């Protein structure tokens, strides 16, 4: 497989994952707007922060009113990382990797692009927002379905999964960081019982709401949530879960190529680190510091993969 092709598949699924995260954040933000009367604009600001977009947003916009933020996230030309551009980039990468992805996967990506573009031609009215988000989520789910059902479990598949989980781990760490750092400025809150609204939004925006309720009915504590989002091996978005998948796929690559892989060793090191951690120890040593360090090593792992498998010349 060409290095460029590996890169294309890797980025196709990074962009797709990123687009899905944006859709989910908008869904959460919108729900928050409808159910809570206070702190509306704070919630939108924290969403933009989680995406690393708040500074750029404030440079061109005065306040955080819902319609404006939603448009910024979905399609505003002032925002190069808007959802429409992400889907466009995902498709562009799919076009350059036609020789390595199945026809079904290509068609699913192409259809996703067509539908999302149609839906986002004009600013989405509030009345249409739930249906639009739903459409985006269903379209991206079809892409994932096509990958799972039709792709050979070869290096191409591994690169898609590595891209997917690097992006997911990055996004999760940012979202946890924003919630704890922005919404709970005083450290004394951490460990005490969280206020209902806060924990609900953290869980919703990470797709963890119902899973967490099944596992811990009626119990919500900062400790429990931190443990769930960072360390739980059953929850498919936890940092630990992401690294389980990353080590699996990087191991598969190293084995099929018959190489000693530095990126695999690094992923294994990070994954093993989760086993020795507890939520208490993370909170005690500083959650923010933990997450910042995690984001750094995660970025570094991505760079190692790109270099090891010759994505660029």
């Amino acid at each position: 497989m060409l290095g460029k092709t590996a890169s294309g598949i890797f980025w196709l699924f990074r962009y797709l994952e990123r687009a899905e995260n944006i859709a989910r954040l908008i869904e959460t933000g919108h729900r928050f707007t409808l159910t809570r009367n206070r702190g509306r604009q704070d919630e939108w600001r924290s969403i933009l922060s989680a995406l690393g977009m708040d500074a750029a947003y404030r440079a061109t916009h005065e306040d955080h009113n819902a319609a404006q933020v939603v448009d910024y996230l979905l399609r505003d030309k002032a925002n190069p990382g808007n959802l429409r551009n992400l889907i466009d980039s995902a498709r562009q990468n799919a076009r350059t990797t036609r020789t390595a992805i199945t026809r079904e996967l290509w068609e699913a990506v192409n259809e996703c692009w067509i539908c999302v573009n149609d839906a986002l031609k004009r600013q989405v009215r509030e009345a249409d927002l739930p249906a639009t988000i739903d459409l985006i989520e269903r379209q991206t789910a079809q892409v994932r379905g096509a990958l799972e059902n039709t792709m050979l479990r070869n290096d191409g598949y591994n690169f898609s999964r590595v891209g997917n989980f690097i992006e997911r781990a990055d996004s999760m760490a940012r979202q946890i960081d924003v919630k704890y750092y922005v919404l709970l400025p005083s450290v004394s809150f951490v460990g005490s019982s969280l206020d209902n609204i806060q924990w609900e939004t953290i869980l919703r925006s990470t797709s963890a709401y119902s899973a967490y309720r099944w596992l811990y009915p009626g119990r919500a504590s900062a400790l429990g949530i931190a443990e769930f989002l960072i360390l739980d091996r059953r929850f498919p978005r936890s940092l630990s879960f992401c690294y389980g998948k990353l080590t699996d796929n990087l191991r598969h690559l190293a084995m099929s190529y018959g190489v000693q892989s530095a990126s695999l060793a690094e992923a294994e090191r990070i994954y093993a680190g989760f086993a020795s951690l507890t939520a208490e120890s993370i909170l005690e040593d500083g959650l923010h510091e933990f997450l910042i360090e995690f984001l750094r090593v995660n970025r570094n792992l991505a760079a190692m993969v790109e270099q090891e498998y010759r994505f660029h010349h």
Partner: protein
Amino acid sequence: MATKPPCFDEMLNEDGTPRAAYSAYHKWFEEQDVTHLKQKARDAEEFFRRTGITFAVYGDDEAEERLIPFDIIPRIVTAREWTKLSRGIEQRVRAINAFLQDIYHRQEIVRAGRLPVELLEKNEAFVSQMIGFTPPGGVYTHIVGIDLVRTGPDEFVVLEDNARTPSGVSYMLENRETMMNMFPELFSNIRVRNVSDYPKNLRASLSRVAPAACNGDPVVAVLTPGIHNSAYFEHAFLADQMGAELVEGHDIRIVDGRVAMRTTRGYQPIDVLYRRLDDDYLDPLIFKPDSVLGIPGIFDLYRAGRITIANAPGTGIADDKAIYSYMPDIVEFYTGEKPILKNVDTWRCSEKDSLAYVLDHLSELVVKEVHGSGGYGMLIGPAASKRDLADFRAKLIAKPANYIAQPTLALSTIPIFANSGLSPRHVDLRPFVLVSPDKIDITPGGLTRVALRKGSLVVNSSQGGGTKDSWVIEDD
């Protein structure tokens, strides 16, 4: 007002009854419900959109990607007609390869006084670096597309030979897929010759011209200028269908005297490069020095037998419009036979008498730029305004050697499925030919392009042309 020359309709006789080739299809068509067919036509468009079969139009930001309109009425040729046609095509393609071999070696045709030497010497498509070099297997044009028009029941005329990098074969294949999806019952009842082996044959054909340096199964790659090229879909499609890598210049480097592509496992040598890039951009050390699309140094390795380039550099001379008028001579010179397929009568404006004739009859003629393609820079006399005619007259006088002129042909028509029902439109046909050392393989049918605007003779997709599925049916 000049009366339009009568033209041949391929589906219907003058009395409205179907011709033999169309009898089974026409019967089926008559039984169809029009609303149902309209739905099918929309389904077909949706199918193309969903599968991403698009082309880019240069300098058109608004619609960067467009669909080529597809018409659901097929072009049908009988096996008997096809046999004759394909013999003519094969003869012509053999002659083209012999011609290229000759002009890059002893130039017997010039010595024999059958072709003026200036046509080679002053021609930009002549690549002097090819002189004295014979490509692997002696094949110059591995892939050829011959543009034909039909002017009568038994008359196909060659409009143009595409000997560089003919495009459109992906549409031939996808048109058939679409038709089989839309109308499976037609294919159960009518025996249409299969086209779907083309990618397999292309790969086999390219593998047979592997360079001396190749050991084992030849590694084939398709070289594309990139995702913004108008034919990018086709490049990706063919690479995918052949099981070859799709590479761009920056994926390639010269490693240990081989042209190699950067893979996830390291650099891997390429044996046969099917390049969809013009000569000019191929090697900045030889051609355009500022080209970033090509591969510096590839030409030296080519000459050293370290890689095969398909088509060979310098084949463009064979489809040059100035050379075209000599094609009947060329065919006869190299095959010793009379040409089976006719050429269109052509006036070379470089010749004084011809220029005078062309200027006198401008409003009746089609005038083409010698180096133009894609239907650009062309004058269709009978359809041109007074102003267009005056503009072209000035151009002709200024640079006569840049132009050739031809009579306006009575291009055949085939109906399209229009809102009001069947409506005749002019068509051409581009069969695709694969050449390997021991074999010439012509896919039955080809790409039919259709001028969708009523009365128009321009079939190019860049100018509003569409396509049809093209059938060769077995004789009963």
